[in-house]
């Protein structure tokens, strides 16, 4: 049980849900994404980076999850998702920009729980 992982996973999930709701809202309001979306995405990215550093520190200390390769892949992949999503949505001029943000937020929400699952798998 990673003591550092539980609370931050919940925080990441909450921020991801907020971002997804904001994205859907801007699509429904027929607007592009705004500073609010970018700010929340930045908070999400910050949390993901903190979480990645904590996990890397733990792994460097010898506490590696059994499926190390998959875990590392998720860990590296998840920090790219909000960045790629924000860049891809920012240049979109139609109302679908918000849906792009919502999709990437949902992806983070799924990936973070898969990460936790991989981390909490019993050590050999």
């Amino acid at each position, binding site marked *: 049980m990673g003591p550092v992982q539980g609370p931050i996973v919940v925080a990441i999930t909450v921020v991801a849900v907020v971002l997804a709701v904001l994205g859907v809202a801007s699509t429904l309001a027929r*607007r*592009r994404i705004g500073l609010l979306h970018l700010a929340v995405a930045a908070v999400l990215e910050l949390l993901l980076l903190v979480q990645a550093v904590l996990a890397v520190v733990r792994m460097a200390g010898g506490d590696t999850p059994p499926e190390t390769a998959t875990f590392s*892949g998720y860990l590296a992949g998840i920090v790219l998702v909000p960045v790629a999503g924000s860049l891809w949505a920012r240049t979109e001029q*139609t109302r*679908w920009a918000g849906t792009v943000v919502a999709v*990437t937020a949902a992806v983070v929400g799924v990936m973070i729980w898969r990460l936790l699952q991989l981390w909490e798998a019993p050590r050999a």
Partner: protein
Amino acid sequence: MREIRALGEPATAADGTAPGRRGAGRVLVAVYGTFALAAGARAAVQLSTKFAEAPVAYLLSALAAVIYIVATVGLVRGGRGGRRTALVAISAELVGVLVVGTFSLADRAAFPDETVWSVYGQGYGFVPLVLPVLGLLVLRRTAQKSPPKSPPPPKSSPPPSP
């Protein structure tokens, strides 16, 4: 100059030629990009760490990853070539998810480990089954819109300014 609002500027109508760069197509590309990443990473892990356990399943994983990558690139590039590439890749994807999904149910032994397409993409919330259908719909819709350039689609017109 328009005021930059925290909630975003009013949206404009879709334009451009690449199906993946306008409107709903951009959402599709975001999802395809995610699956290219997910399937690619999964295939890389499976092939590099335990290829001998289930070579067929893992090679299909890799094939799925390649198809997602090709579809993403085709949608983003657009044009005649890009559209055709996307059409071929998405059709292959639809066949793949149906065939692999069926085989994974019929013959569990041949698919001991999960692939993106196992049980019609159950491990990914069945998104792999829905995605090619949406992809083909977007390709078809943008193809119908492309030739007449003059009349802009009325349904996503910007709201009247206050």
